């Protein structure tokens, strides 16, 4: 399976690539719209802060490509900030408009230690995955939660995860296999 990983700024996207390769997929970092549209699965990883990330997507025309993919109901996986960018807006950086692929907005975490970093169980499965975030999704499309926070978001062909499956050991790889590769 050909997987296009949107590359649009500085951050650890190599771990996403390595995890997908371990699972037998053919991942590739892409910087332009065409290969993102052509792939079987597109991955929107989260890198940097919301404003710099949206600017990075726009500069490369990847924002329109992602909307086009969603419009054609082709699979997209958003990870962490990549999930939050898919919403209509985020509070981060004084308010940034998102891609609008999924209803809802990202709001700053107000309880507990922020950033929320570490392994936390996700309900209903109870499996723990690794999180690292300061904002969380308020969306009707959440299908799994962690301590009341949206952990998995599903809307048509878009699947978003607040945690990092690529950094969540064997549990993360199982999640990617089950939720992405076997469905795309």
């Amino acid at each position, binding site marked *: 399976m050909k997987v296009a990983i949107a590359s649009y700024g*500085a951050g*650890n996207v190599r771990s996403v690539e390595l995890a997908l390769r371990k699972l037998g997929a053919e991942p590739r970092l892409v910087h332009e719209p065409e290969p993102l549209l052509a792939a079987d699965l597109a991955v929107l990883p989260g890198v940097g802060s919301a404003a710099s990330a949206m600017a990075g997507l726009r500069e490369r025309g990847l924002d329109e490509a992602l909307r086009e993919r969603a419009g054609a109901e082709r699979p997209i996986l958003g990870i962490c900030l990549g999930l939050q960018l898919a919403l209509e807006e985020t509070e981060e950086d004084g308010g940034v408009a998102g891609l609008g692929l999924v209803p809802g907005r990202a709001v700053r975490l107000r309880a507990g230690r*922020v950033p929320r*970093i570490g*392994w936390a169980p996700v309900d209903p499965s109870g499996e*723990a995955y690794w999180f690292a975030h*300061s904002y969380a999704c308020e969306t009707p499309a959440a299908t799994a939660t962690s301590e009341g926070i949206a952990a998995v978001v599903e809307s048509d062909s878009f699947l978003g995860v607040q945690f990092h499956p690529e*950094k969540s050991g064997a549990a*993360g790889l199982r999640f990617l296999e089950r939720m992405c590769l076997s469905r795309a």
Partner: protein
Amino acid sequence: MPLPRLIPCLDVAAGRVVKGVRFQGLRDVGDPVELGAAYSDAGADELVFLDVSATLEARGSAVEVAARVAEEVSIPFTVGGGIRSVEDATAVLEAGADKVSVNSAALARPELIGELAEVLGTQAVVVAIDTEAGRVRSHSATRDAERDTVAWARECEERGAGELLVTSIDRDGTREGYDVELLARLRDSVSLPVIASGGAGSAAHVAAALDVAQAALLASILHENPARLVSLRDELRALGVALRDAA
């Protein structure tokens, strides 16, 4: 709150894991990838690789170590030591690390913290604070940084740090227990996660640190022995610490 974290720390020089007392007399104790993978299998929640190379030439290897570790280990890891710029940090993250840790460079130029947070996201920026008697130390703890530890912790948070890695130099290597009093003051002063470091000698010490901090850095208590991490996790569970089921 996420589960408390156990974070083995590996000192690396010229691409090898080394062991030494206070950065003196380093001796080779293994390969960072092999040891990192073994700790991951033993239930580590994250890993920290600290480059303690004495020279800039040897430090170039930190990026290479990050790249090799990322291929074999699928839990989060932090790389620290010698990171002085956004470019240095970006190279380490693009190689596959999840966070960078900065120490003396942030003390010399505190704006660096905000610059890193803007480009990499706040969650990727760990500020390491070496502290002794409530004061910050710099340059591998050899110099007085002329700052109060709690005040510097607050400033790091304001500038965009995502976590604080707080090492009590007066406890480091003593096995007398973490400086729980300082950790409690930090808990009440900042809202960031705090990683406790320095002084672990027993499971009870680690449990006491995890009562007031979100994570415990494990160095000499493990003796570069992943099997010790397995037994430590069992002992912590018996003390009532809720650890992740790492199966």
